[in-house]
């Protein structure tokens, strides 16, 4: 297999190299599908967005509405800034996906505020939950709002622009000492869901916690994510979109492109670069410089990924 791993520890690439491969907090990632292959067009607001052809969609993640700690005392405000960028886009995307941690503490007002801001984009939004969206006492608020027509804890699939999208939930029933978890029921459903699909159908899997193992020491991976990836092996084009780690990380492995999105709330440190994966406090002036700092371009045929810094401020 002609693997290209941007930061494969097995290849002995240094932490410095890993850091070079990553960029920080941003607004959203614009995706387009041409010729059946999804490409990231870069950060919202970059000039490339205007070139969007065919179907485009947007990914936002980890808005953590309600978060008010030093790393960003106004997470709702930065979400609003991100949504304002979306509204100002010259080419309107078809829809948006949100890869979880909509709220910080699953409070009613946090869900309300998130909805109030995100709905201003006037786009359909397909959500998957993060672990922060399931911590209300009765664990019902997320499902009441976003669970209609979904299975189990909230997984589902839909088709758009010739692409088959699958939203997965890997934040429930987590086991002590383990990572993210899809569970047998969901995996069975996924296998079944993909069964009738032509192998030429482009597949997009999206879930909160990375489906690939990014850094198990910090829980950044999914215990049974490998099983899900088995089911998409035969497909010509597979894109896996995740959040949770509040930074961009990408890897291309055979037919599968992995990508994690920035948070709209606060950055988290690079794997192993801090004592914990907790919110990373940066200078106030720097936070917004980091927002929307990078454009990400996926290239066809397993070519290396291009990450270009395009700061919105400064």
């Amino acid at each position, binding site marked *: 297999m002609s693997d290209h791993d941007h930061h494969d520890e097995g290849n002995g690439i240094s932490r410095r190299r890993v850091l070079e491969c990553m960029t920080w907090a941003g607004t959203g990632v614009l995706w387009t599908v041409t010729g059946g292959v999804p490409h990231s067009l870069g950060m919202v607001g970059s000039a490339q967005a205007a070139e969007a052809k065919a179907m485009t969609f947007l990914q936002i993640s980890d808005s953590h509405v309600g978060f008010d*700690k*030093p*790393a960003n005392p106004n997470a709702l405000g930065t979400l609003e800034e991100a949504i304002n960028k979306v509204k100002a886009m010259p080419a309107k995307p078809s829809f948006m996906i949100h890869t979880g941690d909509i709220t*910080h*503490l*699953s409070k009613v007002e946090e869900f309300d505020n998130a909805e109030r801001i995100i709905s201003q984009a006037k786009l359909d939004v397909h959500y998957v939950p993060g*672990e*922060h969206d399931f*911590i209300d*006492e009765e664990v019902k608020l997320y499902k009441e709002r976003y669970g209609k027509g979904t299975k189990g804890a909230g997984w589902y699939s839909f088709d758009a622009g010739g692409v088959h999208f699958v939203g997965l939930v890997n934040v429930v029933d*987590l*086991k*002590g*000492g*383990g*990572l993210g978890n899809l569970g047998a029921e969901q995996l069975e459903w996924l296998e079944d869901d993909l069964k009738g699909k032509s192998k030429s159908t482009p597949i997009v899997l999206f879930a909160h916690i990375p489906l690939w193992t990014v850094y*198990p*020491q*910090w*829980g950044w991976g999914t215990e049974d994510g490998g099983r899900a990836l088995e089911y998409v092996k035969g497909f010509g084009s597979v894109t896996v979109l995740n959040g949770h780690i509040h930074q961009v990380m990408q890897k291309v492995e055979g037919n599968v492109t992995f990508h994690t999105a920035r948070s709209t709330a606060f950055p988290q440190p690079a794997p192993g670069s801090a*004592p*914990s*994966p*907790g*919110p990373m406090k940066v200078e106030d002036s720097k936070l917004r410089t980091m927002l929307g700092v990078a454009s990400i371009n996926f290239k066809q045929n397993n070519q290396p990924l291009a990450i270009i810094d395009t700061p919105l401020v400064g």
Partner: protein
Amino acid sequence: MISTTLRSLGLAIAAAMLLLVNFAGAEDAKVENAKVEDTKVMIDNFTFEPVQLTVKVGTTVTWTNRDDIPHTVVSAGKFRSKTMDTDGTFSFTFTTAGDYKYFCSLHPHMTGTVKVE
């Protein structure tokens, strides 16, 4: 008469002194109990400190979350905290001896053990 009164007064003073001594004793006992029966586990940087704790039966353990991210403390079938935001606490009194493995249900790589003897 006088001597009786004096004697009564003397007894009263003695009784008062005894009471004082008793109060002091009670205070000492309380401090002693605090040392033995209330034990704290701090959550800092996504880790439990101490990660392994040995306590006597009847001990109350209190977890305090000092991270900017919420955490929980869950021991399957034994105890389950609500979500603790920053500075949130959870207490559990261990009434049965045994090893209690627990973890954070939001960040399951965070694990700890309470050994109750």
